[in-house]
């Protein structure tokens, strides 16, 4: 019984993460001069799962989301960027959470900023061009703000879901 509930919730989280990334892709770009600025809506689910179930669960949801999005709407190039960003972001968030120096908001912010960092590092290597790194300045600014909002939302979600999942 317990297992069934877990599987069902995992499936729900995966779907939610995937739909949020799709929804985010539909939104018009906020600021066309710097590509890559986004809310990071899927991170809402990833952060919540990280707090509810731990790193392994969050990694599975994150990976499944990437694979499903890739199969449904993606191409190989964007998949490489997404994977680098998501992997680095989750790794850092898990570490920061373990150190327990920040609340959900801080964890989410480090996740947002390192997500951008992972993608920029891949871009710098793929294009062999350091000047792409300049984007990181603006992305840090917007990533911090977006991560803040997502972190607050994730904290609220975590509080409510924790009650629901325990019952």
């Amino acid at each position, binding site marked *: 019984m317990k297992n069934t509930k877990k599987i069902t919730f995992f499936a729900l989280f995966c779907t939610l993460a995937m739909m949020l990334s799709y929804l985010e892709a539909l939104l018009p*770009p906020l600021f*066309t*001069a710097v*590509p890559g600025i986004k809310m990071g809506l899927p991170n809402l689910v990833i952060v919540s799962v990280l707090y509810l179930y731990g790193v392994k669960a969050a990694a599975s949801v994150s990976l499944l989301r990437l694979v499903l999005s890739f199969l449904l709407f993606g*191409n190989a*190039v*964007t998949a490489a*960027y997404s994977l680098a960003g998501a992997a680095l972001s989750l790794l850092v968030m898990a570490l920061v959470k373990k150190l*327990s*120096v*920040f*609340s959900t*908001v*801080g964890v989410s*912010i*480090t996740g947002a*900023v390192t997500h951008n960092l992972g993608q920029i590092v891949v*871009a710098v290597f*793929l*294009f*062999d*061009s350091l*000047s*792409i790194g*300049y*984007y990181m*300045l*603006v992305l*840090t*600014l917007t990533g*911090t703000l977006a991560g*803040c909002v997502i972190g607050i939302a994730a904290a609220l979600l975590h509080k409510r879901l924790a009650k629901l999942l325990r019952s």
Partner: protein
Amino acid sequence: MTASDTKKRLWRNDLVLIFVLLFVAALGILLAFLFRQEGAYCTLTQNGKEIGRYSLSVDREITVYADAQKTAYNTVRIKDGGVSVLAASCPDKICQNSRAIRYHGETVVCLPHGLVITVYSDEDGLDIVV
């Protein structure tokens, strides 16, 4: 330490993190803005390989193909000392929507086609202008 003390400490750390990140990013942007230099030429690179180098003082349009069938293209426009992508066949059109760049180090990137346009300021690179 009580639970509420811990919560307070975490919140304070969050605030420090937010301010440090915002400050560093804002300072970086300010410095980049203050020390920007007008560009003299731009390079086009495809998947890390340079495919062309053009002076910014001559207006022109260049079409670059990303595949052998010549269906995937980016049309690059140099006009009034700035470079932009006029048209592109990529799905996201991020490069096409980017504004024209004119300062040293600025880039326009087309991720799907692996194309990077970079502006440089020093004139010595102009030896190999196409």
